[in-house]
């Protein structure tokens, strides 16, 4: 692992140049992170602790008596038994798989297309930034208008192509989730594409020449040389996107409200409703902690992947 050589050399150099107390040396430059850590603990510690604490209580903010009744694990058990929460959890996982999967495939394709300099590609690269900068609320509103079965542009052109749109992309229970996935893919594929593009650009040309000499075709070069080298960056992109897709809220809130039926109910939307519309603080906190665990699980899987990669390199 090349990353740590700098730090090792740095430590020995520092030791040679001006000897300091041993514990300080072992700490290295960690104190540089202290202000940030302190700041985050300062402002995140209480809310996080409160959220953990209140999740063991029955507490409704709008209850005039403001009683907090100890409930043990009841809120967590309630979540597991709550059909709405179970559907929301399933939808969230499904959403992550579909959205992050599509963003990876599409992002990779765009990166490969843009990697070779042709006239016009810089312009495309600039224009790709547009979806990234749009406020998510506006994005959701725009797509809501586009999807409208009777006045929406998307439905209009689908109908013109002879597609039976039925109640419209967001009106049919079978397509509603997919319609929201497309919104997410629209907004965030450019991020993945730009990250992968930058990754491709940083790969040295020598490797590909060597592969070409060995008789590898274009596809073989891509699969056997470029893609493995891209894996670390790919995993970072997946990590960022997974964390944020689990926290998806705006498009569900504005476009479908979780409907039709349960079709687009996702965890963060359900938590928002419970916490900030019904003010059922204990239950909202418990579900939010479960979501945190779920995100943590996914993150751990990615970290494992990174760890293994580190060994092979």
């Amino acid at each position, binding site marked *: 692992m090349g990353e*740590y050589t*700098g*730090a090792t*050399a*740095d430590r020995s150099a*520092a030791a040679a*140049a001006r000897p300091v107390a041993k514990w300080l040396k072992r700490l*290295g*430059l*960690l104190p*540089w*992170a202290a*202000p*940030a*850590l302190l*700041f*985050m603990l300062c*402002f*995140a510690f209480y809310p996080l602790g*409160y*959220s953990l604490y209140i999740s063991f209580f029955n507490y409704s*903010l709008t209850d005039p008596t403001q009683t907090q009744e100890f409930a043990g694990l009841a809120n967590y058990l309630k979540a597991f038994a709550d059909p709405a929460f179970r559907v929301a959890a399933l939808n969230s996982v499904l959403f992550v798989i579909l959205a992050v999967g599509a963003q990876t495939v599409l992002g990779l*394709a*765009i990166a490969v297309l*843009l990697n070779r300099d042709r006239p016009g590609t810089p312009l*495309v690269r600039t224009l*790709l*930034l*547009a*979806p990234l*900068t*749009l*406020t998510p*609320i506006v994005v959701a509103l*725009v797509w809501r*208008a586009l999807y409208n079965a009777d006045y929406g*542009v998307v439905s*209009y052109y689908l109908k013109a192509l002879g597609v039976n749109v039925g109640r419209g992309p967001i009106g049919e229970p079978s397509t509603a989730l997919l319609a929201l996935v497309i919104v997410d893919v629209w907004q965030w*594929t*450019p991020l993945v594409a*730009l*990250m992968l593009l*930058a990754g491709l*650009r*940083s790969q040295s040309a020598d490797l590909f020449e060597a592969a070409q000499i060995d008789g590898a075709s274009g596809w073989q070069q891509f699969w056997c040389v470029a893609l493995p080298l891209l894996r*670390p960056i790919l995993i*970072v992109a997946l990590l960022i996107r997974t*964390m944020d897709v689990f926290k998806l809220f705006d498009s569900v809130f504005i476009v479908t409200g979780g409907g039709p039926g349960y079709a687009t109910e996702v*965890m*963060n939307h359900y*938590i*928002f409703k419970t*916490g*900030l519309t019904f003010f059922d603080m204990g239950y909202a906190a418990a579900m*939010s902690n479960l979501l*945190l665990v779920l*995100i*943590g699980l996914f*993150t751990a899987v990615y970290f494992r992947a990174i760890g293994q990669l*580190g060994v092979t390199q």
Partner: protein
Amino acid sequence: MMGRRRQRAADAVTYTLLALIMGFFLFPFVWLLSTSLKPARDAFAIPPVWIFRPIMDNFRTVFSMVPVVAYLKNSLTIALGTTALSLLLGVPAGYGLARTASRAAGNSALLMLAIRMAPPVALLIPFYLVMRDIRLLGTYLAVILLQSVFNTTFVAWMMRGYFLSLPADLELAAMTDGCTRFGAFWRVALPLAVPGLATAGIFTFTFSWNDFLLPMLLSGRTTRTLTLGILETMSTYEIGWNNMAAIGMITILPVLLLGYILQPYYVRGLTLGAVRE
């Protein structure tokens, strides 16, 4: 000869694909822009009207409905404040984590990440009560502080990756020449990390600018942001799509401009920061 023909075919395929992709990514944008320039009753004309005489009425209406200039100023203050604070805390943290090889450094980085993972909804009410108790409710600072909690992690992780990709030798050389540790960071490492800084900066700015949930509960009468203003233009009863489109265009312009100016750094910064876990 064969080669040239194949090349040309490949170009044709590439450009067709690029055109399709651009169509997909740009048409919602074009819809937004055109809606902002249309009279209200034409917004949902069937079949859709793409060529028309633009009018500025919607922008005028929005300016009379919502204190756009004040909100713009508030959004700018909050976004700049968050960016400044996040960079101030996150950049040295990233550097420290990159140049320390201990287990403690790895754990600190993970701790930061865990805070970034937390869904903000359940934290909002306690945040609100804390801000009330330190008498910051309704100030810019309340929003800035809490946005920075989430964004400092992002900056620290990004910069950690970026500094890891820079060789430490240069800093060591500077230190043997008599530079302090801080001097080496300041004069050697930081200038090399400008693309990373620009990337982290613009992302933090965008996250803060587009944030809706934190300002919704924590901002006050004089510190409301443009994202809140967008929803002010529409009652549940009458969605003024044209006005929404107009204020939507106003909202995205500054970010778009910033993104365009910083684009050369942005793409470069995105990689180097991200390559190392």
